[in-house]
């Protein structure tokens, strides 16, 4: 009887379970969604924003100089000094790199390169290094090995009161204690203070980085607007080495940030769009226009500088800088790009009758790793040695510089002496161009380009210039029917 009672309970439960299992299992099997759905969780790639340790009780003043703050930081963050010193934010120079067509490895960086905006920092250190993550770089003898010269606050100040001036020193009157006690992870303001103002002012240089990104609407930048990203959510750092490369200054394509770090490559529902990915960068469609809100500099003519005849206006002419053309919300220029670029290095000879490329994106239709990318192309008319056919770098800032004397001869002589360039004494102006990959200010998906924007009679692509016989919608893509292409 006792057995029977046990049996009773057992059978009752077992029977119920078996019956339910027989019913539920097939239903679950049939109703569960298929496995073929693309798993796409872009948030998996985004770091969590954890509250930063409050330093206000940890850090005690008083601080006389920026270096005093740095010393305080280094007391606890012992590794930080050597870590920062290994980064380009400190060295303004790359690791030695074997650039194609050069004898031996070279190092290039803000430190020693030439561009077609303010041209170069050598001799102009005091003015340029206000954006250096250090203190006191005012001549060629700056001590790169002294950890106390590191400026921690420029990236970590969260008080918003910290401002750098000449040679990177904090400007007069900055409350260093308040700034030091506010330290935390870098905000948009920390990065933007320098990167949004490249070229000497808001929006001048990049065309895809400007002060709208402090508080961008969703339709300007989906990541920072709609999803409230910080710069460092994509440009993540390891040991103070921040991810990201740009051919405006970098040689290699290491440690790059990619859309596919977070996004699945084949996530478009439309197979036809997914086939584009082999030849078209995400940015090409998803950044249909550059400089959407703030106009960016497209042309800089140094040759008119120094004139008192032309009326000054910040977006068209400045006596110290020359004439400019700004453009906003423009269609980018499209070209093949595999992540690297050729580079004009100081001392290279150039052909003044041609536009000299400071950096030319590498890749063409035959380069399987290259994709069609959007670029801002900045044209300039800048000084070169009329005899030796090399681009010259003037001293503009400070004593004897062009901005004081308005004397090109003297400014170029000073610059050449500092760099060690052979200057014949005769200069002229020649056109140069720089390519700036358009990669920020990604728009919401619904703003992306559609077929007609590129294909068809009204399309924005110059297919023949890209190496196609004609519109690939008719002629086939470069992989689909390679025999069609030249």
């Amino acid at each position, binding site marked *: 009887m006792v057995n029977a009672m046990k049996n009773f309970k057992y059978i*009752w439960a077992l*029977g119920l379970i*078996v*019956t339910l299992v027989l*019913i539920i299992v097939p239903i679950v099997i049939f109703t569960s969604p298929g496995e073929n759905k693309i798993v796409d969780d872009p948030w998996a790639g985004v770091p969590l924003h954890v509250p930063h340790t409050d330093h206000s009780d940890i850090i005690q003043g008083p601080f006389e100089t920026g270096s005093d703050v740095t010393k305080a930081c280094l007391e606890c963050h012992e590794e930080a000094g050597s870590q920062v010193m290994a980064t380009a934010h400190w060295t303004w120079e790359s690791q030695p790199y074997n650039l194609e067509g050069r004898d031996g490895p070279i190092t290039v960086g803000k430190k020693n390169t030439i561009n077609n905006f303010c041209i170069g920092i050598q001799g102009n250190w005091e003015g340029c290094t206000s954006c250096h993550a250090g203190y006191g770089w005012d001549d060629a003898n700056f001590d790169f090995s002294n950890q106390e010269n590191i400026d921690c606050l420029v990236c970590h100040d969260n008080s918003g009161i910290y401002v750098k001036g000449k040679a990177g020193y904090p400007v007069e009157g900055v409350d260093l204690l308040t700034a030091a006690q506010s330290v935390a992870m870098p905000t948009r303001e920390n990065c933007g203070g320098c990167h949004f103002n490249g070229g000497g002012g808001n929006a001048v240089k990049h065309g895809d980085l400007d002060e709208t990104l402090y508080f961008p609407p969703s339709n300007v930048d989906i990541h920072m607007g709609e999803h409230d990203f910080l710069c460092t959510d994509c440009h993540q750092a390891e040991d103070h080495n921040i991810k990201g490369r740009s051919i405006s200054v970098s040689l290699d394509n290491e440690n790059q940030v990619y859309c596919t770090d977070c996004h699945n490559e084949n996530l478009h529902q439309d197979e036809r769009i997914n086939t584009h990915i082999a030849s078209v960068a995400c940015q090409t469609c998803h950044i249909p226009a550059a400089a959407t809100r703030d106009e960016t500099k497209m042309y800089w003519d140094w040759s008119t500088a120094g004139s008192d005849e032309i009326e000054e206006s910040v977006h068209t002419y400045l006596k110290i800088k020359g004439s400019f053309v700004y453009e906003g919300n423009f269609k980018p220029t499209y070209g093949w790009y595999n992540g690297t670029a050729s580079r004009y290095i100081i001392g290279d000879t150039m052909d003044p009758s041609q536009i000299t490329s400071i950096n030319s994106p590498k890749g063409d239709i035959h380069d399987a790793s290259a994709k069609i990318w959007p670029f801002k192309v900045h044209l300039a008319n800048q000084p070169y040695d009329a005899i030796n056919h090399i681009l010259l770098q003037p001293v503009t800032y400070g004593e004897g510089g062009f901005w004081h004397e308005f004397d090109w001869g003297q400014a170029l002589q000073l610059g050449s002496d500092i760099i060690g360039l052979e200057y014949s004494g005769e200069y002229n102006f020649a056109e140069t161009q720089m390519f700036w990959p358009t990669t920020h200010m990604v728009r919401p998906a619904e703003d992306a380009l559609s077929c007609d924007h590129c294909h068809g009679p009204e399309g924005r692509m110059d297919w023949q210039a890209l190496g196609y016989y004609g*519109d690939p919608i008719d*002629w086939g893509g470069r992989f689909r029917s390679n025999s069609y292409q030249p």
Partner: protein
Amino acid sequence: MHNKMKTNSRIFRHLLYCGLTMLFLASAGFVTHSIVQAKQPVISQTQLSTIHPTFPFLDDVGENVLHTGKPVSTMNTCGACHNTTFIEEHSFHVNLGFGEITNPGETPSGRAWDTSPGFFGKWNSIAYRYLSPVGDDVVDLTLATWIQTLGVRHVGGGPAVYAQNGQRLIELGADPANLEVNVVNPDTGELIPWDWAESGVVEMNCFLCHTPNPDNQARANALHNGYFGWANTATLLGTGIVEGSENSYQWNPDAFTPEGNLASEFIQIQDPTNENCGLCHGLVHDDVEDPLIMVGCTPERWSTITTGQIVSPQKLSDSGMNLTNKDELNRSWDVHAERLLKCTDCHYSLNNPLYYQESPSTRPEHLIFDPRRLEIGEYLEQPLHQFARGNSAQSTVAGELKDTMRRCDSCHSVENSHDWLPYKDRHIDTLSCESCHIPQMFSSANMVQDWTVISLEGSSITQCRGIEGDSDSVGSLISGYEPVLLPRQNLAGETTLTPHNLITSWFWVYGDPPRPVRQTDLQVAYLENGAYHPGIVLRFDENRNGNLETSELIIDTPEKEQFVKDRLSHLGLGNPRIVGEVQPYSINHDVATGEWATKECQACHSEKSRITQPIQISAYAPAGVIPEFVADSNIAVSGDFINMEDSSLYYQPQTDPQKLYILGHDSVAWIDLAGTIIFVGVLAGIAVHGGLRFYTALRTPHSAPRTPHSAPRTPHSAYRTKKVYMYSVYERLWHWLQTFAIVMLLFTGLVIHKPDTFGIFSFRGVVLVHNVLAAILAINAFLSLFYHLASGEIQQYIPRPRGFFDQTFTQARFYLQGMFKGEEHPFEKSAHKKLNPLQQITYFAILNVLLPLQGITGILIWGVQRWPESANRLGGLPFLSPFHTLIAWLFAAFIVMHVYLTTTGHTPMASIKAMIMGWDELEVPQSAEEQVTGKA
């Protein structure tokens, strides 16, 4: 001169063939690397052909127009190389029904005044004017006035060049009785001769379709003003080849070479672009960036007016239109335009070697593709201008060409893209692709042409759908409209639901055979000296302000109707009366990708099904006249007109006549009623029976311990039971599995039957669960059948024939009487005889009749997509589904009864416990007590 011409044309021919050969090689992709490199700039960004040879412009007698200053003759100019006669003879755009002229009233439309199935001779409510049939006394349009008023929608050639007797119009002699050589004098109404030699004729206008920017307005002006011969020349205005206006055009010598040929930089011959087709067919906007704006719904661009179709790659949200929820409308107007398809990619010339495909009906079974193509030179010389066309409801010209074009599934693989869609084949058999992929029109369209009244300008009173506020204001909100789904038949006789707009017209006809009252007569009846006739104002001016607003121009009282009737009669029009007709216009463009298509099951499988969604016909029915569908469309009229309280008129398609049964939408009222009655009846019976049992128990409290039906047996009871192992493990599993499955099937079935009542469930999910449960039930049933056969337990269910009826009666008597008197169960229950005769017959019926029937109907319903013939043989879904529903009701009733009867054991829960545990406690009948004891 003649010789030179000959030489010239030979050179052209050589050049042409050279060019053609190159084009062919290039397009076939066989060009060698080196040639292409040498010729790299050949591929232009536009569609202009850079290899078209140069040619002279010739006039109607073949002389160079530079010398004669006469209008260009396309037939001679283009005809120097291309066989323009062939083209003209093989073009329904030229013909427009001219070759299908019949006696009036004998066309498929059945309209007494129609003389052809094409625009030339077929009336429509938007144009309203009609080409008067031969012999009519009251003449509306003669040939010349047809060209003047409606010729802008004709490409020229055919009826604009030739008389019906085959003679050229300019060769016809004067004949007061021939409408082809006369026009109506607007002042006197008398016929006066038309001088074709002076006006010229309208040759087939090649430029309209084959040049990039034809000046259609100049052409329209030339036609309207009667300078027919200049119309084609006017089309070239703006190209730099010709200048001038009206009937005075000068050829620009700078556009020609010294030899008199068109200079190569002026040659802009191209394949027709969407813009070319759009000139007549609908609004085309090929620019993605420049915002598209369309105002109102005035009859200008045919397909846009009739349906709201706009061909543009632009996103709706980027357009300049004031659309409802515009920000969210992040789709293009037309996905095919977005994907850079051209009109001609689907509507191609039927002998275009790149495109044509033999119809599957005439192609040998073993062939998928016939590679024997027309040589491209032959094609360019004699390209058919019969274009592949669809199967629209409204277009009846050249009916033999219907269904010649590519359909959606010629290019798209439904197989590979609709896996998510349950019952794919069934859906695709019933629905056209368009019915889901054109879920909504995002522009306004015409709805009503009310010609029973007339505006001061002489036009009808129109109503638009899809727009709120003034239909001619750019600021009005455009809500668009959902097209009505109508069953449309193709040539193969297959019917699918296809989206349509309905345009309804009311108008006066008179006489017998009837004719529409001419626009001019309407004007005379309504107007006087440019204002409304005082009698009209007296009767129509509702607000007594002395003016007639548009909203007052309605014939809604017998008095108004009679007055207008009298006015028309007074004009000599016998028996004027109002008729109304509904013209469906098919919608096949403005297709959206799957993301925007109708996908939710409940869009159709619900009470307010998309399939039967009504569409407004009009805000009112003039004089209460209910319109009729036109007779010549391929739409099966299967719905009802509904008069709403606010006097508006709707049309609602019905599923019944279409032989459709939409689960979740359709139901058969009497079946649900009968089912409910049976179910409720059983519940009521149980309530009465159970109440009586309870009452009986209360009335005999003392005997309660001895009454097994009303109280549990107490241990002290003298009443004896025995424990019997009644149900094996398998039997119990079978029983309970069946129980769960059936109960859940009934519930999910109910959700499918009335999804609106159970809105929280996903229709699709519930259907899936229902099917899985059915499979479980079926497998369970087959296994148990095997068990019962193999173990011999089947005998339990088979009634013993001898005395069966008596026993059944005995058992029924027990339930109805005996148990209240405390009688014992008439039949002993034992492991060998578990069922009483009543149970036997019931279970036999349930398990052998209802269950199989329900299974078979269920499988057939499930199988309509796989084996539609099997279901159709049994009446299809309209029979199977209600039948399935009826049986479900019976099952529900049975289950209630069954559960109740299980409580009639010696205690209410005893039988249920037995079915759970297997062990039953059986009463030991007094008579058998000793036996039991002995056995124990």
